[in-house]
Protein backbone atom coordinates (compact mmCIF):
# COMPACT_ATOMS: atom_id res chain seq x y z
CA UNK A 1 0.00 0.00 0.00
CA UNK A 2 2.80 2.36 0.93
CA UNK A 3 4.51 1.75 -2.34
CA UNK A 4 1.29 2.41 -4.27
CA UNK A 5 0.74 5.68 -2.46
CA UNK A 6 4.28 6.74 -3.28
CA UNK A 7 3.74 5.89 -6.92
CA UNK A 8 0.48 7.83 -7.07
CA UNK A 9 2.22 10.72 -5.30
CA UNK A 10 5.08 10.81 -7.75
CA UNK A 11 2.68 10.53 -10.67
CA UNK A 12 0.83 13.55 -9.33
CA UNK A 13 4.06 15.48 -8.97
CA UNK A 14 5.05 14.47 -12.48
CA UNK A 15 1.68 15.62 -13.82
CA UNK A 16 2.09 18.92 -12.00
CA UNK A 17 5.56 19.29 -13.44
CA UNK A 18 4.24 18.74 -16.95
CA UNK A 19 1.41 21.17 -16.34
CA UNK A 20 3.87 23.79 -15.12
CA UNK A 21 6.16 23.14 -18.06
CA UNK A 22 3.21 23.70 -20.37
CA UNK A 23 2.58 27.02 -18.72
CA UNK A 24 -0.63 25.99 -16.94
CA UNK A 25 -1.42 26.73 -13.30
CA UNK A 26 -0.79 23.80 -10.98
CA UNK A 27 -3.91 21.92 -9.96
CA UNK A 28 -3.97 21.66 -6.17
CA UNK A 29 -6.03 18.47 -6.39
CA UNK A 30 -3.23 16.81 -8.31
CA UNK A 31 -0.44 18.18 -6.15
CA UNK A 32 -1.81 16.80 -2.88
CA UNK A 33 -3.11 13.41 -1.82
CA UNK A 34 -5.20 15.14 0.88
CA UNK A 35 -8.80 16.04 0.12
CA UNK A 36 -8.69 19.79 -0.51
CA UNK A 37 -10.41 22.05 1.99
CA UNK A 38 -12.49 23.41 -0.84
CA UNK A 39 -14.44 20.25 -1.53
CA UNK A 40 -15.01 16.51 -1.54
CA UNK A 41 -17.15 14.43 -3.84
CA UNK A 42 -19.36 11.42 -3.19
CA UNK A 43 -20.77 9.27 -5.94
CA UNK A 44 -24.18 7.66 -5.62
CA UNK A 45 -24.07 4.44 -7.57
CA UNK A 46 -25.91 1.11 -7.36
CA UNK A 47 -27.97 2.33 -4.40
CA UNK A 48 -24.91 3.20 -2.29
CA UNK A 49 -22.81 6.20 -1.32
CA UNK A 50 -19.14 5.98 -2.25
CA UNK A 51 -17.06 6.29 -0.26
CA UNK A 52 -19.37 5.33 2.61
CA UNK A 53 -17.24 7.25 5.08
CA UNK A 54 -15.14 10.30 4.36
CA UNK A 55 -13.07 12.48 6.67
CA UNK A 56 -12.84 16.17 5.85
CA UNK A 57 -11.59 19.33 7.53
CA UNK A 58 -14.19 21.75 8.90
CA UNK A 59 -15.32 24.23 6.30
CA UNK A 60 -15.28 21.67 3.47
CA UNK A 61 -18.05 21.43 0.95
CA UNK A 62 -19.23 17.94 0.03
CA UNK A 63 -20.85 17.38 -3.36
CA UNK A 64 -22.94 14.31 -4.10
CA UNK A 65 -23.60 13.21 -7.67
CA UNK A 66 -26.28 10.67 -8.55
CA UNK A 67 -25.05 8.15 -11.12
CA UNK A 68 -28.05 5.81 -10.78
CA UNK A 69 -31.02 5.48 -13.12
CA UNK A 70 -33.35 6.19 -10.21
CA UNK A 71 -33.70 9.33 -8.08
CA UNK A 72 -32.17 9.59 -4.63
CA UNK A 73 -32.58 12.08 -1.79
CA UNK A 74 -29.50 12.91 0.31
CA UNK A 75 -30.60 13.67 3.86
CA UNK A 76 -29.04 13.97 7.31
CA UNK A 77 -30.47 11.36 9.67
CA UNK A 78 -32.46 14.06 11.48
CA UNK A 79 -33.92 15.30 8.16
CA UNK A 80 -33.16 18.83 9.35
CA UNK A 81 -29.48 19.66 9.01
CA UNK A 82 -29.41 19.01 5.27
CA UNK A 83 -31.76 17.46 2.73
CA UNK A 84 -31.49 17.58 -1.05
CA UNK A 85 -34.37 17.72 -3.47
CA UNK A 86 -34.87 14.50 -5.45
CA UNK A 87 -31.68 14.06 -7.46
CA UNK A 88 -32.28 12.62 -10.89
CA UNK A 89 -29.46 10.99 -12.86
CA UNK A 90 -26.33 13.25 -12.91
CA UNK A 91 -27.91 15.81 -10.56
CA UNK A 92 -25.69 17.26 -7.80
CA UNK A 93 -26.21 18.37 -4.24
CA UNK A 94 -23.67 20.25 -2.09
CA UNK A 95 -23.45 21.03 1.59
CA UNK A 96 -20.73 22.80 3.59
CA UNK A 97 -19.78 21.32 6.95
CA UNK A 98 -18.58 24.04 9.29
CA UNK A 99 -18.39 22.25 12.65
CA UNK A 100 -16.36 19.16 13.60
CA UNK A 101 -18.37 16.03 14.30
CA UNK A 102 -19.71 12.83 12.77
CA UNK A 103 -22.69 13.34 10.50
CA UNK A 104 -24.72 10.30 9.55
CA UNK A 105 -26.88 10.59 6.48
CA UNK A 106 -29.07 8.41 4.27
CA UNK A 107 -31.29 8.36 1.21
CA UNK A 108 -34.71 9.51 2.41
CA UNK A 109 -36.55 7.33 -0.12
CA UNK A 110 -34.21 4.30 0.03
CA UNK A 111 -33.39 4.34 3.75
CA UNK A 112 -31.21 1.23 3.53
CA UNK A 113 -28.65 3.52 1.90
CA UNK A 114 -26.61 4.95 4.79
CA UNK A 115 -23.19 6.64 5.07
CA UNK A 116 -21.33 9.24 7.14
CA UNK A 117 -19.16 12.32 6.99
CA UNK A 118 -16.49 12.85 9.65
CA UNK A 119 -15.60 16.53 10.00
CA UNK A 120 -12.35 17.31 11.83
Amino acid at each position, binding site marked *: MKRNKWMIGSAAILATAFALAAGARPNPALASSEIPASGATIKID*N*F*SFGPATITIPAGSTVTWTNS*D*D*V*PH*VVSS*DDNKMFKS*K*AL*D*TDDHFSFTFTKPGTY*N*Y*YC*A*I*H*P*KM*TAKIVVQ
Partner: protein
Amino acid sequence: MADFIRDNINKDGIDRRGFLQCMAWAGTGVLYSLHGGILKSLPLMQGAASGMDMAKMKGADFSFIQISDSHIGFSKEANPDVTATLQIAVDRINSAAAPPDFLLHTGDISQLSKPSEFDTAEQVLKGAKASRIFYVPGEHDVLTDNGQQYLDRFGKNTKGNGWYSFDHKGAHFIGLVNVMDLKAGGLGSLGPDQLKWLQDDVRDLKSSTPVIVFAHIPLWTVYPDWGWGTDDSEHALGYLKRFGSVSVLNGHIHQIMQKVEGNVTFHTALSTAFPQPAPGTAPSPGPMKVPADQLRSVLGISHVNFVQGSHSLAIVDSTLA
Protein backbone atom coordinates in the same frame (compact mmCIF):
# COMPACT_ATOMS: atom_id res chain seq x y z
CA MET B 1 -44.34 -18.15 -17.25
CA ALA B 2 -43.46 -20.37 -14.29
CA ASP B 3 -40.46 -18.12 -13.76
CA PHE B 4 -42.82 -15.49 -12.42
CA ILE B 5 -43.84 -17.53 -9.43
CA ARG B 6 -41.31 -17.56 -6.66
CA ASP B 7 -41.61 -20.26 -4.03
CA ASN B 8 -43.59 -19.98 -0.82
CA ILE B 9 -46.70 -21.34 -2.41
CA ASN B 10 -48.43 -23.56 0.07
CA LYS B 11 -49.48 -26.72 -1.66
CA ASP B 12 -51.42 -28.26 1.21
CA GLY B 13 -54.81 -28.76 -0.32
CA ILE B 14 -57.75 -28.14 1.94
CA ASP B 15 -60.86 -26.85 0.28
CA ARG B 16 -60.68 -26.25 -3.41
CA ARG B 17 -64.40 -26.48 -4.06
CA GLY B 18 -65.47 -24.37 -6.92
CA PHE B 19 -61.95 -24.09 -8.16
CA LEU B 20 -62.07 -21.35 -10.73
CA GLN B 21 -61.37 -22.28 -14.25
CA CYS B 22 -60.39 -19.75 -16.76
CA MET B 23 -57.63 -19.74 -19.26
CA ALA B 24 -55.98 -16.65 -20.57
CA TRP B 25 -57.76 -13.45 -19.85
CA ALA B 26 -55.27 -11.54 -21.92
CA GLY B 27 -52.85 -13.84 -23.61
CA THR B 28 -50.32 -14.92 -21.05
CA GLY B 29 -50.37 -14.95 -17.31
CA VAL B 30 -50.68 -17.03 -14.23
CA LEU B 31 -53.94 -17.84 -12.56
CA TYR B 32 -53.98 -17.72 -8.79
CA SER B 33 -56.93 -19.11 -7.01
CA LEU B 34 -57.36 -18.77 -3.29
CA HIS B 35 -59.60 -21.03 -1.28
CA GLY B 36 -59.74 -20.87 2.47
CA GLY B 37 -56.32 -19.27 2.61
CA ILE B 38 -54.75 -21.87 0.37
CA LEU B 39 -53.32 -20.78 -2.89
CA LYS B 40 -53.11 -22.75 -6.06
CA SER B 41 -51.61 -21.59 -9.27
CA LEU B 42 -51.46 -22.84 -12.79
CA PRO B 43 -49.84 -21.33 -15.82
CA LEU B 44 -52.06 -19.97 -18.50
CA MET B 45 -51.48 -21.13 -22.03
CA GLN B 46 -50.77 -18.42 -24.49
CA GLY B 47 -53.69 -17.66 -26.71
CA ALA B 48 -55.97 -20.25 -25.19
CA ALA B 49 -59.60 -19.24 -24.97
CA SER B 50 -58.60 -15.63 -25.14
CA GLY B 51 -62.18 -14.49 -25.50
CA MET B 52 -63.08 -15.66 -22.04
CA ASP B 53 -63.49 -12.94 -19.54
CA MET B 54 -62.31 -13.23 -15.97
CA ALA B 55 -65.31 -11.38 -14.63
CA LYS B 56 -67.48 -14.19 -15.92
CA MET B 57 -65.61 -16.81 -13.99
CA LYS B 58 -67.97 -19.17 -12.25
CA GLY B 59 -69.36 -17.62 -9.13
CA ALA B 60 -67.37 -14.41 -9.35
CA ASP B 61 -69.11 -11.46 -7.72
CA PHE B 62 -66.93 -8.73 -9.00
CA SER B 63 -63.49 -8.03 -10.33
CA PHE B 64 -61.02 -5.22 -10.17
CA ILE B 65 -57.62 -4.58 -11.70
CA GLN B 66 -54.41 -3.70 -9.93
CA ILE B 67 -52.02 -1.52 -11.88
CA SER B 68 -48.69 -0.42 -10.46
CA ASP B 69 -45.42 1.44 -10.88
CA SER B 70 -46.15 3.36 -14.07
CA HIS B 71 -43.18 5.72 -13.38
CA ILE B 72 -44.33 8.35 -15.88
CA GLY B 73 -41.25 10.48 -16.61
CA PHE B 74 -38.75 7.61 -16.64
CA SER B 75 -37.02 7.55 -20.03
CA LYS B 76 -33.95 5.36 -19.75
CA GLU B 77 -33.16 1.75 -20.61
CA ALA B 78 -35.07 -0.55 -20.81
CA ASN B 79 -38.11 1.62 -21.49
CA PRO B 80 -37.72 5.01 -23.18
CA ASP B 81 -41.52 5.37 -23.48
CA VAL B 82 -43.33 4.48 -20.26
CA THR B 83 -46.39 6.45 -21.38
CA ALA B 84 -46.81 4.08 -24.31
CA THR B 85 -46.64 0.97 -22.11
CA LEU B 86 -49.13 2.49 -19.65
CA GLN B 87 -51.41 3.09 -22.63
CA ILE B 88 -51.05 -0.57 -23.63
CA ALA B 89 -52.04 -1.56 -20.10
CA VAL B 90 -55.13 0.65 -20.35
CA ASP B 91 -55.95 -0.88 -23.75
CA ARG B 92 -55.76 -4.34 -22.16
CA ILE B 93 -58.11 -3.27 -19.39
CA ASN B 94 -60.52 -1.93 -21.98
CA SER B 95 -60.37 -5.08 -24.11
CA ALA B 96 -62.10 -7.12 -21.39
CA ALA B 97 -65.68 -7.96 -22.29
CA ALA B 98 -66.90 -6.86 -18.87
CA PRO B 99 -65.20 -3.85 -17.34
CA PRO B 100 -63.70 -4.19 -13.86
CA ASP B 101 -65.60 -2.48 -11.04
CA PHE B 102 -62.59 -0.24 -10.43
CA LEU B 103 -58.81 0.04 -10.64
CA LEU B 104 -56.29 0.07 -7.82
CA HIS B 105 -53.03 1.87 -8.54
CA THR B 106 -50.42 0.79 -6.01
CA GLY B 107 -48.07 3.72 -6.42
CA ASP B 108 -45.10 5.18 -8.24
CA ILE B 109 -47.49 6.83 -10.65
CA SER B 110 -44.67 9.26 -11.53
CA GLN B 111 -40.89 9.12 -11.62
CA LEU B 112 -40.12 12.48 -9.97
CA SER B 113 -43.46 13.84 -8.67
CA LYS B 114 -43.46 16.44 -11.45
CA PRO B 115 -46.84 18.04 -12.27
CA SER B 116 -46.34 17.19 -15.96
CA GLU B 117 -45.77 13.52 -15.08
CA PHE B 118 -48.94 13.37 -12.97
CA ASP B 119 -50.83 15.15 -15.77
CA THR B 120 -49.73 12.54 -18.32
CA ALA B 121 -50.57 9.64 -16.01
CA GLU B 122 -54.03 11.04 -15.29
CA GLN B 123 -54.64 11.65 -18.97
CA VAL B 124 -53.80 8.04 -19.93
CA LEU B 125 -55.61 6.46 -16.98
CA LYS B 126 -58.71 8.54 -17.70
CA GLY B 127 -59.11 6.39 -20.81
CA ALA B 128 -59.59 3.22 -18.75
CA LYS B 129 -63.10 1.82 -18.69
CA ALA B 130 -63.45 1.82 -14.95
CA SER B 131 -65.78 3.87 -12.83
CA ARG B 132 -63.04 4.80 -10.40
CA ILE B 133 -59.33 4.55 -9.69
CA PHE B 134 -58.15 4.19 -6.11
CA TYR B 135 -54.55 5.19 -5.40
CA VAL B 136 -51.87 4.83 -2.77
CA PRO B 137 -48.57 6.72 -3.18
CA GLY B 138 -45.17 5.28 -3.97
CA GLU B 139 -41.98 7.01 -2.79
CA HIS B 140 -41.64 8.55 -6.26
CA ASP B 141 -44.99 10.34 -5.83
CA VAL B 142 -44.13 12.22 -2.63
CA LEU B 143 -40.75 13.74 -3.55
CA THR B 144 -41.99 17.32 -3.26
CA ASP B 145 -43.99 19.23 -0.63
CA ASN B 146 -44.06 16.22 1.68
CA GLY B 147 -46.60 14.60 -0.63
CA GLN B 148 -49.10 17.48 -0.72
CA GLN B 149 -49.32 17.42 -4.51
CA TYR B 150 -50.13 13.71 -4.43
CA LEU B 151 -52.88 14.33 -1.85
CA ASP B 152 -54.38 17.18 -3.88
CA ARG B 153 -54.53 15.08 -7.04
CA PHE B 154 -55.07 11.49 -5.93
CA GLY B 155 -55.75 11.48 -2.21
CA LYS B 156 -58.75 13.75 -1.67
CA ASN B 157 -60.81 12.83 1.40
CA THR B 158 -58.14 10.51 2.73
CA LYS B 159 -56.62 10.49 6.20
CA GLY B 160 -53.08 11.50 7.20
CA ASN B 161 -50.61 11.02 4.36
CA GLY B 162 -53.28 9.42 2.18
CA TRP B 163 -54.63 6.31 3.89
CA TYR B 164 -58.32 5.32 3.74
CA SER B 165 -60.75 2.45 3.52
CA PHE B 166 -63.94 1.66 1.66
CA ASP B 167 -66.45 -1.14 1.32
CA HIS B 168 -67.39 -2.77 -1.92
CA LYS B 169 -69.97 -5.53 -2.29
CA GLY B 170 -69.26 -7.03 1.11
CA ALA B 171 -65.46 -6.72 1.01
CA HIS B 172 -63.48 -4.17 3.01
CA PHE B 173 -60.64 -2.41 1.15
CA ILE B 174 -57.84 -0.63 3.00
CA GLY B 175 -55.30 1.63 1.25
CA LEU B 176 -52.16 2.17 3.33
CA VAL B 177 -49.20 4.54 2.94
CA ASN B 178 -45.76 3.14 3.79
CA VAL B 179 -43.46 5.49 1.87
CA MET B 180 -43.37 8.53 4.18
CA ASP B 181 -41.13 9.48 7.12
CA LEU B 182 -38.69 6.66 6.43
CA LYS B 183 -35.95 6.23 9.02
CA ALA B 184 -32.25 5.83 8.21
CA GLY B 185 -31.33 2.16 7.92
CA GLY B 186 -34.97 1.08 7.94
CA LEU B 187 -37.58 -0.27 5.54
CA GLY B 188 -41.01 1.03 4.56
CA SER B 189 -43.00 2.52 7.44
CA LEU B 190 -46.67 2.88 8.36
CA GLY B 191 -46.13 4.93 11.52
CA PRO B 192 -48.09 5.05 14.80
CA ASP B 193 -50.86 7.40 13.58
CA GLN B 194 -51.78 5.17 10.69
CA LEU B 195 -51.59 2.00 12.78
CA LYS B 196 -53.94 3.56 15.34
CA TRP B 197 -56.34 4.49 12.57
CA LEU B 198 -56.17 0.96 11.14
CA GLN B 199 -56.94 -0.59 14.51
CA ASP B 200 -60.04 1.61 14.82
CA ASP B 201 -61.03 1.08 11.20
CA VAL B 202 -61.37 -2.70 11.49
CA ARG B 203 -62.59 -2.85 15.09
CA ASP B 204 -66.29 -3.20 14.31
CA LEU B 205 -65.96 -5.43 11.27
CA LYS B 206 -67.14 -9.03 11.45
CA SER B 207 -64.28 -11.53 11.26
CA SER B 208 -65.98 -13.07 8.24
CA THR B 209 -65.56 -9.86 6.25
CA PRO B 210 -63.04 -10.36 3.43
CA VAL B 211 -60.29 -7.75 3.81
CA ILE B 212 -58.13 -6.50 0.95
CA VAL B 213 -55.17 -4.32 1.88
CA PHE B 214 -53.17 -2.43 -0.74
CA ALA B 215 -49.97 -0.41 -0.30
CA HIS B 216 -46.89 0.39 -2.36
CA ILE B 217 -43.98 -1.30 -0.58
CA PRO B 218 -44.55 -4.99 0.27
CA LEU B 219 -46.06 -5.51 3.72
CA TRP B 220 -44.04 -8.66 4.16
CA THR B 221 -40.28 -8.86 4.17
CA VAL B 222 -39.31 -9.81 0.65
CA TYR B 223 -35.64 -8.76 0.78
CA PRO B 224 -34.50 -6.37 3.51
CA ASP B 225 -31.07 -5.75 1.96
CA TRP B 226 -32.88 -3.90 -0.82
CA GLY B 227 -35.44 -2.32 1.50
CA TRP B 228 -38.21 -4.58 0.24
CA GLY B 229 -40.36 -4.76 3.33
CA THR B 230 -42.15 -2.62 5.91
CA ASP B 231 -40.75 -2.19 9.43
CA ASP B 232 -44.03 -2.05 11.33
CA SER B 233 -46.22 -4.22 9.10
CA GLU B 234 -46.37 -6.85 11.87
CA HIS B 235 -48.60 -4.50 13.87
CA ALA B 236 -50.92 -3.95 10.94
CA LEU B 237 -51.16 -7.67 10.24
CA GLY B 238 -51.80 -8.26 13.94
CA TYR B 239 -55.01 -6.21 13.73
CA LEU B 240 -56.08 -8.32 10.75
CA LYS B 241 -55.29 -11.71 12.27
CA ARG B 242 -58.84 -12.53 13.30
CA PHE B 243 -60.18 -12.16 9.77
CA GLY B 244 -60.83 -15.31 7.78
CA SER B 245 -59.60 -13.90 4.48
CA VAL B 246 -56.98 -11.19 4.07
CA SER B 247 -55.35 -10.33 0.75
CA VAL B 248 -52.41 -7.94 0.58
CA LEU B 249 -51.62 -6.34 -2.78
CA ASN B 250 -48.35 -4.46 -3.25
CA GLY B 251 -46.13 -3.04 -5.98
CA HIS B 252 -42.66 -1.46 -5.69
CA ILE B 253 -40.55 -4.48 -6.68
CA HIS B 254 -41.71 -4.69 -10.31
CA GLN B 255 -42.09 -8.47 -10.30
CA ILE B 256 -44.65 -11.03 -9.25
CA MET B 257 -44.15 -12.59 -5.85
CA GLN B 258 -46.58 -14.50 -3.76
CA LYS B 259 -46.70 -15.76 -0.22
CA VAL B 260 -49.38 -17.34 1.93
CA GLU B 261 -49.25 -17.11 5.70
CA GLY B 262 -52.25 -18.44 7.56
CA ASN B 263 -55.28 -16.62 6.19
CA VAL B 264 -53.19 -13.91 4.59
CA THR B 265 -52.16 -13.97 0.95
CA PHE B 266 -49.49 -11.52 -0.16
CA HIS B 267 -49.06 -10.63 -3.79
CA THR B 268 -46.90 -8.13 -5.68
CA ALA B 269 -47.76 -6.89 -9.17
CA LEU B 270 -45.70 -6.22 -12.26
CA SER B 271 -44.85 -2.66 -13.27
CA THR B 272 -46.12 -1.07 -16.46
CA ALA B 273 -42.75 0.71 -16.89
CA PHE B 274 -39.68 -1.48 -16.36
CA PRO B 275 -38.67 -4.73 -14.61
CA GLN B 276 -36.43 -5.01 -11.56
CA PRO B 277 -34.07 -7.90 -10.79
CA ALA B 278 -34.98 -10.82 -8.55
CA PRO B 279 -33.64 -10.33 -4.99
CA GLY B 280 -29.86 -10.55 -4.79
CA THR B 281 -29.34 -11.29 -8.48
CA ALA B 282 -27.89 -7.86 -9.30
CA PRO B 283 -25.65 -5.31 -7.51
CA SER B 284 -28.71 -3.15 -6.79
CA PRO B 285 -32.48 -3.12 -7.29
CA GLY B 286 -32.20 -0.55 -10.09
CA PRO B 287 -34.11 -0.93 -13.37
CA MET B 288 -33.31 -4.17 -15.20
CA LYS B 289 -32.29 -3.78 -18.81
CA VAL B 290 -33.94 -6.20 -21.21
CA PRO B 291 -33.92 -6.39 -25.02
CA ALA B 292 -36.58 -4.13 -26.55
CA ASP B 293 -38.50 -7.07 -28.03
CA GLN B 294 -38.81 -8.65 -24.57
CA LEU B 295 -39.86 -5.59 -22.62
CA ARG B 296 -43.60 -6.11 -22.82
CA SER B 297 -43.28 -9.68 -21.57
CA VAL B 298 -41.94 -8.41 -18.22
CA LEU B 299 -44.54 -5.66 -17.74
CA GLY B 300 -48.16 -6.21 -16.82
CA ILE B 301 -51.26 -5.80 -14.71
CA SER B 302 -53.15 -7.96 -12.23
CA HIS B 303 -56.79 -8.86 -12.66
CA VAL B 304 -58.38 -9.75 -9.33
CA ASN B 305 -61.56 -11.76 -9.15
CA PHE B 306 -63.57 -11.79 -5.99
CA VAL B 307 -65.94 -14.59 -5.01
CA GLN B 308 -68.13 -13.83 -2.06
CA GLY B 309 -68.95 -16.43 0.54
CA SER B 310 -66.24 -18.86 -0.43
CA HIS B 311 -63.36 -16.65 0.72
CA SER B 312 -61.78 -16.93 -2.61
CA LEU B 313 -59.82 -14.42 -4.56
CA ALA B 314 -58.27 -15.20 -7.89
CA ILE B 315 -55.44 -13.10 -9.24
CA VAL B 316 -54.41 -13.30 -12.85
CA ASP B 317 -51.13 -11.60 -13.68
CA SER B 318 -51.14 -10.73 -17.35
CA THR B 319 -48.13 -9.41 -19.17
CA LEU B 320 -48.36 -6.72 -21.84
CA ALA B 321 -46.78 -8.99 -24.47
